[in-house]
């Protein structure tokens, strides 16, 4: 019997990311769930189970950093790996300072993804 697989949740408004990323994560051996917005994730019943959050920064409605703050407020210490299509180098130190595990700039390699998620789960 395999140990219970860690749940990695993906929150991104981009559909191709929501479709492709969970499949790859499952190939890595993680359980994966995708949500199109921060609000949808917060409303789901997997918040407590989620061991790692792959979180888009720029989204309509609640942004990635907003969700990060909300989780902190709720004392849900979920390691977060930010993913972004913008190369906003300036915001990265701030996000990392707030406890983000890693930040991936799209497009990223599967190795970079695996490294980031593995590091977050440690």
């Amino acid at each position, binding site marked *: 019997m395999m140990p219970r697989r860690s749940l990695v949740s993906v929150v991104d408004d*981009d559909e191709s990311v929501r479709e*492709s990323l969970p*499949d790859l994560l499952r190939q890595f051996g993680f359980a994966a769930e995708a949500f199109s917005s921060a609000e949808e994730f917060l409303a789901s019943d997997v918040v407590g189970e989620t061991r790692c959050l792959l979180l888009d920064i720029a989204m309509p409605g609640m942004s990635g950093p907003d969700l990060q703050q909300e989780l902190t407020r709720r004392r849900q210490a979920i390691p977060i790996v930010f993913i972004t299509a*913008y190369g906003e180098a300036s915001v990265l130190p701030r996000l990392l300072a707030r406890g983000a595990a890693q930040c991936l*700039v*799209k*497009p990223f*390699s*599967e190795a970079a*993804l695996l490294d980031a998620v593995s590091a977050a789960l440690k």
Partner: protein
Amino acid sequence: MTGQPVEPTGGWTGFQAVNGDEPVAGATATDLISILDTVEVPIVVLRRDFTIAGFNKAAADVLRLSPSDIGRASRTISVFAGLPRLEEQCSQVIASGVESRTDLRDGDRSFVIRISPYAKGDRQVTGTVLTFTNVTAFRASIDQVIYERECTKAILNAVADPVVVLSADQRIHSGNRAFYTMFFELASLRTRLNGMLAGTRAFQPVEVDHDFPGEGRRTLLLHARPLSMPGHPERRVLVTFEDITARKQAEAANDLRAIAERKDGLRRSEAFLAEAQRLSLTGSFSWRVSTDEITWSEQLYRIFEFDPSMPVTLELIGTRVHPEDTLLLQDMIERARGTGTDFEYEHRLRMPDGSIKYLHMVAHGTRDEDGRLEYIGAVQDVTARRLSEQALGKAQSELAHVARVTALSTLTASIAHEVNQPLSGIITNASTCLRMLAADPPDVDGARETARRTIRDGNRASDVIKRVRALFTKKEWATESVDLNEATREVVALLLSELQRNRVMLQSELAHDLPAVTGDRVQLQQVVLNLLRNASDAMVDVHDRPRHLLISTEREDGDHVRLSVRDNGVGVDPQDIDKLLDAFYTTKSDGMGIGLSVSRSIVERHHGLLWAEPNDGPGVTFSISIPTDPESGTS
């Protein structure tokens, strides 16, 4: 002396007595007496001793003499009582042999008596012959005339206004009392009076001001009427003088009030003008070209910082003009002298303290009735505006640069985001696909699904690129009939102040009969704008001559229209001319190459040509040639 009546009632008996020793031959004497008696004029003959020798019938009737009077002393005859000097006068006539006359008044009758010597043959004078001419009616008419004259005089003298009658030679014939008390010089009227006296023209009433001693200055209205009588050779003029001083004073008071009001208004508007000139930093001038007579307003003196007492000359103006603008000014003056058309230009002044002023001048040419040219113009000190415009222009170009850079980075980020999303999907899907295929057993269905998503994301990226390209491609190619002259004028209007700021003299020679071309008006205007800007930029380093820019249009053979822009700038090496039009080739630091290559592609889209040729003198001429609109009708 019997007093017996003689028939007819003459007193000629006495003749015999006078000539007693030599009686008249009977028949002759009788005839003579008969003749004398038929004469209506009384005739009386006196002897030397003044006794009556005889008389004719008329004398008996008129003087009431009777034959008994013969031999009586004349002084005893009542009719002679009115002639106390008769004896003395007769003595003189007898002594001298020369006749004389005397007047006799007898009641209401008047006579003129002619006293002639009475001589018989060549003998000595023995008496006198008195002939009585009755002048009663004549005297009465003279008296009437005198009376009438006196009446007229009295009336004229009673008239307050002077009246004078002048003779043809303008001597005063007569005048009333008012005239003589108001004597004055008529010299000023002589010419007019002459004309009237000669009958060549009517005399119009004329006003004369004159100082009268004790009365002061009076205004008189002179009327003159010719006085002439039919058949009378003399021409006279009646001149009347109407004293209109009081009326004039009343009118003058009204006029003065009106003038005062006008003056007041004028002063106010002058004050407004001066204040407006001061506030708007605008001075006005006039320049009479033939004499170079220049008049300045006060404000213009202030702008040039000259003393207002200095006479303005072109030389004086030249001392203030910025050395770099001297040629421009000379060129402007020469053009202005020739054409007489309105002109407008900008130049700088260098003040004694080294500061620079920017002036904007507008001048309007007028010609007087002799065809002499005069310019009326306004000069505005636009230094503050120019400096702020320059600062603004600099800020704008900096801002534009920042905006460009910002826009570019925003654009880049936007493109990156749009493209990175599908790229990210592609990489992730491809990675998943490889892993699914590598699994044991391979998840072929999963791999197929991820490969399908990879293709979809690839298409998505491609769509993004298409969208970006569409964003930067000009919407539509507008095709319309374009009047190249009109389009050029609009561009020139836009660019004029920039050209003037660069001290470029722009000359337009646009052909009158230019046919329209077919194309995109805005794009063609961009070409014209680009050519003008390039030409202006090419003359930036020209300081030894006026910067001339000529834009011209003309109709070419073969249904083409040509537009040329000729500068006298630094020019281009002939071998570089072709390269000029290549994209990204530029002789300037701020990159005109792209502008020219874009211009060329626009012209080529209009099926036209763009080329450059070096001038004979300095500079380059850029030309475009575009086919005319086949429907423009002028072809």
